[in-house]
């Protein structure tokens, strides 16, 4: 019996969802945080999409959101010129980190001791979360606003993307190691630690590079402008979404388009696989998050396989 994908729609946001991130797998399952232009990022149970809580405090659109590995802390980047660190269990605000312009991206190190931020002031900042009063270390060099910044290579290096470049920095020396130039705007970046793979999207391209050397591995072209893509943990599939409101699933090895789904009522801004690879989440201009099964018809989370 052929089964059709049933996406699970998570409502609650009232403006476009611009970023989302999963935590690692914890004893309580895994969690999902969504960044929204309504200024109210939300925490959800990762496998069901059930709302857990809303982080209240930002006074502007939230452009980036992330969870630490064990989902005990959350961090958000907002248009109110601050990044905030939150207790993800109680929902309380722990720290407000003032910046000089819109903050777009935040990322915790593996041990949750440091927070990396980047934004429109073109500076990368590293905050020691155990010394919140101390000034952050700053790395300059970008010539346009930073859209995404990520720790990589066991937090020994930093990857950052601005409008048309992706740069690799050494954490210890705070200097640029290598850079990639694009003639189109980079829309998203994802780092896969196992295998040190960097996923970059620009125009209709989904490109895979080594996170260590930035050398290209492969790239695929989609039928429409892609805003975000994610590689499955087992590197069998990748999913991508963008301006035509559709989600595409490709075979990573062959590049063959396997599935595509309509469902969102606006462009897709972000898409990520869950840490166990069983589902992927998409965030859209239409204000919703949708959860999609990797293997359609499997019993998992709220999806229930019913045999005839």
């Amino acid at each position, binding site marked *: 019996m052929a*089964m059709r994908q*049933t996406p699970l729609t998570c*409502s609650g946001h009232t403006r476009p969802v611009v970023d989302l991130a999963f935590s690692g797998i914890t004893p309580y399952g895994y969690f999902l945080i969504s960044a929204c232009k309504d200024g109210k990022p939300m925490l959800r149970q990762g496998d*069901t999409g*059930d*709302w857990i809580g809303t982080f209240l405090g930002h006074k502007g659109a939230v452009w980036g959101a992330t969870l630490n590995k064990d989902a005990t802390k959350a961090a958000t980047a907002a248009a109110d010129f601050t990044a905030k660190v939150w207790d993800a269990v109680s929902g309380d605000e722990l720290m407000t980190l003032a910046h000089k312009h819109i903050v777009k991206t935040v990322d915790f190190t593996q041990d949750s001791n440091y927070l990396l931020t980047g934004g429109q002031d073109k500076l990368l900042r590293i905050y020691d979360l155990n010394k919140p009063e101390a000034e952050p270390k700053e790395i300059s060099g970008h010539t346009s606003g930073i859209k995404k910044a990520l720790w990589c290579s066991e937090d020994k290096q930093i990857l950052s993307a601005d409008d048309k470049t992706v740069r690799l920095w050494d954490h210890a020396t705070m200097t640029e190691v290598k850079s990639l130039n694009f003639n189109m705007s980079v829309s998203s970046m994802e780092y896969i630690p196992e295998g040190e793979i960097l996923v970059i999207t620009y125009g209709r391209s989904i490109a895979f590079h080594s996170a260590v050397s930035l050398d290209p591995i492969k790239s695929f072209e989609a039928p429409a402008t892609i805003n975000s893509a994610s590689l499955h943990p087992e590197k069998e599939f990748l999913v991508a979404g963008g301006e035509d409101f559709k989600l595409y699933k490709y075979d990573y090895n062959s590049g063959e388009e396997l599935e595509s789904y309509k469902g969102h009522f606006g462009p897709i801004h972000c898409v990520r696989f869950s840490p166990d690879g069983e589902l992927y989440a998409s965030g859209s201009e239409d204000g919703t998050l949708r959860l999609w*099964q990797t293997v359609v018809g499997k019993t998992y989370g*709220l999806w229930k*396989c019913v045999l005839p």
Partner: protein
Amino acid sequence: MQTPPTGPVPVPVPVPVLRLPRGPDGLSRGFAPDARGALPKPQVPQSPGSPVAPESLESREQQARATLRERYLRSLLAMVGHQVSFTLHEGVHVTARFGATDLDVANFYVLQLQTPIGVQAEALLRCSDIIAYTFKP
């Protein structure tokens, strides 16, 4: 002559779901205290001879909150049928006849909504879009 079809075309069945994901409750910011093994609130130790101070402070606060809420709900009742001026985002002002609100005060049902682009006979105003409203009873 038309060739007869070889057999019925299988219609893909949507994957069944147990329920839809739960959304925000519209009342609180969430983070239920019993989730993720949070520690229970420590009991306030009562020393002998001291009055039951913490308890009555809490109940006085609760009483004040209940009174304020009752006043607000009564103000909504008083607004029914009256012309209300709403201040929305981006400096937009609209007026309308107030009809009703929903359980969570998340939406206002209004009639004859005067907007910069015309009059809407019936409309739902999202409370999160309203900065302030005023009316004369």
